[in-house]
């Protein structure tokens, strides 16, 4: 971490005033952030456009599939505006995306946007639980590694970190199924919920745990949870590796600060110094890390969902890929990219709010 200056050495330049000066500074910051986001979004659209229209030999075939009738083909060609110059096609594409039109999926014959709305909660559920796993185990592990630097908790954290970065997530999922589902029978197998419980839960939010809890279907709730444990643990392994490594490095920085010495000199218990004082300051940069790892899990979910037959966004994209359903693939890609940008922005703002030095 580059910011080695602790909270004791406050900023000398930033005026600590309030009122209009502070507001304009926030306004400026916000407008700068929003410009960045706008440019990035534009680039995102440009790349997906490039993939959709420029790279394929025949973009029409990519959209309608190989077996389309000639009249369907011609209609699609006109709808894509392929008779117009490239910049006009791009303008049309951007316009369509902003009105929520991502085209129609060949596979489901539904608008891609409504498909994504349907499958997204499943991914959200998985990624949220995965991040929770990462936070619950990653932060304590990172703290212990920093406190016992060079001793066995540190080695353990290092090993887990390296392991998390070296293991193919789809293979870990398969091995998990083999061990915990087939051999030990501790968890349920692939899918979100067993067929027996499928009709008990009405989709309201789409997040099956929430729906089941709200409707008081506790058997269904526990069943869904036992389906969820393994995929979210596999995903959580990823964010655990990342979060514990970053926690360790932030905590090492914090533990060298003078306020830590001051707290110890005051006679405060070591546990209090570590968990209440140092960790609290380390949590500021950690919010950014957690937000980023959350976004990264969207990527991990592509492979995990395939293994666990999880009907989420990742499987939607891969299914589209395997069936040459270009609109579905690109719509999914665009949504994932947009979420990534959104989370990045959110993490930035969160970091600024929590860190008084950047206000």
């Amino acid at each position, binding site marked *: 971490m580059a910011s080695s200056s602790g909270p004791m050495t406050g900023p000398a330049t930033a005026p600590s005033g309030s009122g209009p000066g502070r507001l304009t500074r926030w306004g400026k910051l916000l407008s700068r952030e929003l410009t960045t986001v706008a440019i990035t979004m534009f680039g995102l659209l440009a790349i997906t456009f490039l993939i959709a229209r420029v*790279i394929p030999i025949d973009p029409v075939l990519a959209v309608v599939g190989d077996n389309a009738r000639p009249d369907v083909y011609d209609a699609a060609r006109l709808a894509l505006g392929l008779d117009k110059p490239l910049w006009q096609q791009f303008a049309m594409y951007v316009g369509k995306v902003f009105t929520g039109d991502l085209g129609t999926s060949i596979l489901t014959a539904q608008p891609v946007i409504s498909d994504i709305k349907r499958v997204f909660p499943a991914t959200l559920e998985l990624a949220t639980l995965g991040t929770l796993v990462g936070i619950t185990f990653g932060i304590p592990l990172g703290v212990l590694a920093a406190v016992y630097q060079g001793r066995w908790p540190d080695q353990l954290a290092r090993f887990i970190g390296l392991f998390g*970065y070296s*293991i*193919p*997530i789809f293979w870990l999922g398969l091995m998990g199924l083999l061990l915990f589902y087939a051999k030990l029978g501790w968890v349920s197998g692939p899918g979100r919920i067993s067929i027996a419980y499928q009709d008990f839960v009405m989709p309201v939010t789409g997040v099956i745990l929430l729906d089941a809890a709200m409707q008081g279907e506790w058997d269904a709730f526990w069943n869904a949870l036992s389906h969820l444990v393994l995929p979210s643990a596999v995903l959580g392994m990823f964010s655990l590796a990342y979060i514990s490594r970053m926690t360790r490095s932030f905590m090492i920085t914090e533990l060298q600060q003078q306020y830590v010495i001051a707290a110890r000199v005051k006679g405060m218990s070591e546990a209090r110094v570590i968990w209440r004082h140092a960790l609290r300051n380390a949590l500021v940069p950690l919010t950014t890390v957690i937000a980023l790892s959350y976004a990264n899990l969207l990527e991990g979910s592509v492979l995990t969902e395939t293994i666990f037959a999880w009907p989420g966004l990742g499987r939607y994209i891969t299914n589209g890929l395997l069936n040459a359903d270009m609109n579905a693939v690109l719509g999914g890609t665009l949504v994932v990219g947009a979420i990534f940008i959104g989370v990045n922005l959110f993490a930035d703002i969160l970091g600024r709010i929590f860190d008084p030095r950047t206000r």
Partner: protein
Amino acid sequence: MSNWTAYLTTDAPASRRQARLGQAWRQWLALKQNPLAIAGLIIVVSLLLIAAFAPLIAPFDPLAQNLDRRLMPPSTLNFFGTDSLGRDIFSRIVYGARVTLFIVLLVVISVGPLGLLIGATSGYLGGWVDRALMRLTDVFLAFPRLVLALAFVAALGPGLENAVIAIAFTAWPPYARVARAETLVIRNADYIAAVRLQGASSWRIVLRHIVPMCLPSLIVRTTLDMAGIILTAAGLGFLGLGAQPPMPEWGAMISAGREQIFDQWWVATFPGLAICVVALGFNLLGDGLRDVMDAK
């Protein structure tokens, strides 16, 4: 102390080559102190050797089908068992090392120089060039890597070469970032000012004086990135978008063993172990190199 050691450890190197070799020697001594890094080095060297001597190591032809002996468990004849077409899994893993190495090398060869050049140019020239190039890297970094690679393969069509292109296309921005950060430090150094006063062009300064200085951190970055490249390639292979059958690619082999995972566990397990070991090797080596080469 032998002549060689004296030559390498002298305080007053007589030539540029001697200074360079001396530095490499000191870095090697430092690396030797780190057992994990050496373990990583051994794994990586083994991968190279296995790939080079695959026909000598593998007991069977990796493509030879033997339907009488399909799905045999691991034994002294077939160390890792056989797959659903009766092919020897151990031999396929050995040959798979070639595929993995091929992917990794192609990606690195295409991505390293590109990222280096973009980053160094961006950092040295500054101004609108810098802003434009860095926005471009932002856009690429805004995508999760695998998802973007997936979209590219979707447009290009599945295949090993296309997978390499897709990975390369998504892998360069971090390299550009690293090179730019290094350049920003270097560009204000006195020796760059001296070269500039001698009338050297921007191109010459970037290519001859800045790029070489960025190399160490880029080598570290590359080694650490290898694991990511291997995992992405395996993921593409697993989804059926990378190497096509019957090529023995580790990710595709796991995918092939997926249906039998509960009954014939060995089909999917061993290729995955191979990926783990190799990725771990690159990660360990990269970690060690980082400590040695740029002590920042």
